[in-house]
């Protein structure tokens, strides 16, 4: 069996960053395993600009961000990329791979899981009605259009105001489709304000807040959808049904970390993020197995994925080199208003940048972080669930902490 110091699963932005982080921290013997025939992951189908303002000080397209980031890895001969190879199983640091050469096993001192996320499918939202063609997740439609030049519909309706759906509203409009509208169940949009502006308003595409698609109708191909309005409790308002003729429905109703492989090997999963539970070194509940990027929790910005990946890479290198400091772990506990905090646990011997999301919209409010030995309030104006928040806490602030750390929003 071939052995490596470090195996990274996935060559998206998280996996590439993890390779860079580990390499810079002294671990050179690295295998990166990727299912597709090139690096970049989801970036390769995101041809719009909007990537890399923090990392490269420039707004790049997704493929360009991937290419610029790969520059660093290109001439590092001891970092091996294995393409067209799918990881089937992870067990005791042994990774089983299905590659063009057949099934192969590799062993490593540490494994970083960076396999990204998947889209919530139609089944997950209980769409009623006929089984017909013409219903796609927004990411699938994006892949068809941007990689093959194939437009999946001519008269399109979009369910969910996630960024992929908004980006696709503009893309399909520019390529000649008619986008009739976007429906969002919540009373607020889930996408970035800039995408509402440049993808919907620029093209006069209506956004129906507090609306959802109740049913789809069509004999073989989709013919119409039934749009309904919902009240504050997200319950349908009787009599609000509208029939909208269309031949294509795109779903942009959320992303979930792809955790099937991790779950199968016994890693503990966070019910909120749907990704693994990690400590401040990005190590999961199984020693030597790390996670980062969208496989850990869904990110809005690639720059943050790169930063997180590099940190996970450095931490995995420290683990391999036996440099991780032994210190007790404290837990992050969420109280009112907070959906989750990453990492779920941490040591107090270092500065930490915590990432979190709120679970509803807040106008003027404070993030209250408290516990035995710490009490901190941070003012925030206008926070929404769709924007990931960050808070940096210094070692000096954390070192008096005894027990768990609690997070809440005071509005």
């Amino acid at each position, binding site marked *: 069996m071939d052995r490596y110091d470090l195996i990274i699963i996935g060559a998206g932005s998280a996996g590439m960053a993890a390779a860079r982080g580990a390499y810079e921290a002294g671990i050179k013997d690295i295998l990166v395993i990727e299912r597709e025939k090139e690096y970049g992951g989801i970036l390769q189908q995101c041809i719009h600009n909007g990537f890399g303002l923090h990392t490269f000080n420039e707004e790049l397209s997704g493929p360009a961000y991937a290419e610029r980031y790969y520059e660093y890895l290109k001439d590092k001969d001891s970092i091996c990329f294995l393409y067209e190879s799918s990881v089937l199983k992870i067990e005791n640091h042994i990774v089983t791979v299905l590659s063009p050469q057949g099934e192969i096993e590799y062993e490593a001192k540490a494994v970083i899981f960076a396999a990204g996320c998947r889209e919530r499918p139609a089944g997950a939202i209980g769409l009623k009605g006929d089984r017909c063609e013409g219903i796609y997740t927004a990411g699938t439609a994006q892949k068809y259009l941007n990689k093959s030049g194939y437009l999946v519909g001519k008269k399109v309706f979009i369910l969910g105001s996630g960024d992929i759906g908004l980006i696709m509203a503009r893309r399909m409009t*520019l390529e000649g489709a008619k986008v009739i509208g976007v429906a969002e169940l919540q009373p607020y949009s889930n996408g970035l304000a*800039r995408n509402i502006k440049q993808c919907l308003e620029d093209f006069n595409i209506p956004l129906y807040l507090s609306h959802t698609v109740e049913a789809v109708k069509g004999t073989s191909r989709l013919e119409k959808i039934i749009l309904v309005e919902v009240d504050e409790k997200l319950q349908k308002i009787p009599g609000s049904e509208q029939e909208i003729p269309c031949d294509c429905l795109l779903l942009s109703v959320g992303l979930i970390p792809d955790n099937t492989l991790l779950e199968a090997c016994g890693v503990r999963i966070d019910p909120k993020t749907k990704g693994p539970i990690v400590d401040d070194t990005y190590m999961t509940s199984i020693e030597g197995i790390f996670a980062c990027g969208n496989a850990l929790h869904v990110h809005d910005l690639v720059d943050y994925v790169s930063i997180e990946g590099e940190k996970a890479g450095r931490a995995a290198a420290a683990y391999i080199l036996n440099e991780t400091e032994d210190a007790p772990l404290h837990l992050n506990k969420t109280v009112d208003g907070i959906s989750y905090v990453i990492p779920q646990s941490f040591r107090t011997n270092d500065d930490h940048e915590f990432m979190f999301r709120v679970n509803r919209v807040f106008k003027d409010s404070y993030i209250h972080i408290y516990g035995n030995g710490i009490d901190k309030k941070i003012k925030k104006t206008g926070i929404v669930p769709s924007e990931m928040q960050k808070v940096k806490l210094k070692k000096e602030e954390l070192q008096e902490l005894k027990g768990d750390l609690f997070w809440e929003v005071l509005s």
Partner: protein
Amino acid sequence: MKLVCINCPRGCHLIVEKEGDQIRVEGNACPRGVTYATNEMTNPLRTLTTTVPILSEDYRRLPVITSKPIPRDLQFEIIKALKDTKVKAPIHYGDVIVPDVLGLDSDIIASKTILK
């Protein structure tokens, strides 16, 4: 007047007031917000991305991007102008695919390297 700055993911909510020839902007977290608001009031600009077909072993489409923002209302025009554009590998990131598209002083450039 209210505007959302689209120049970075932060998406600042701008309040824009016209005072004679001057435009006063509030709510911008950086100076780029002022430039954006000024353009938006006079000549809104956008970066355009699309794909063109490529003759290659591995790929069917080449992603392209405007080298400089172009007028918002000419996006369809540019897509139309690219209709018959075809390229052949090898293409490098940054290669000019269509120079000075529609005379707008912006080039259509490759945003990916495709070698074969």
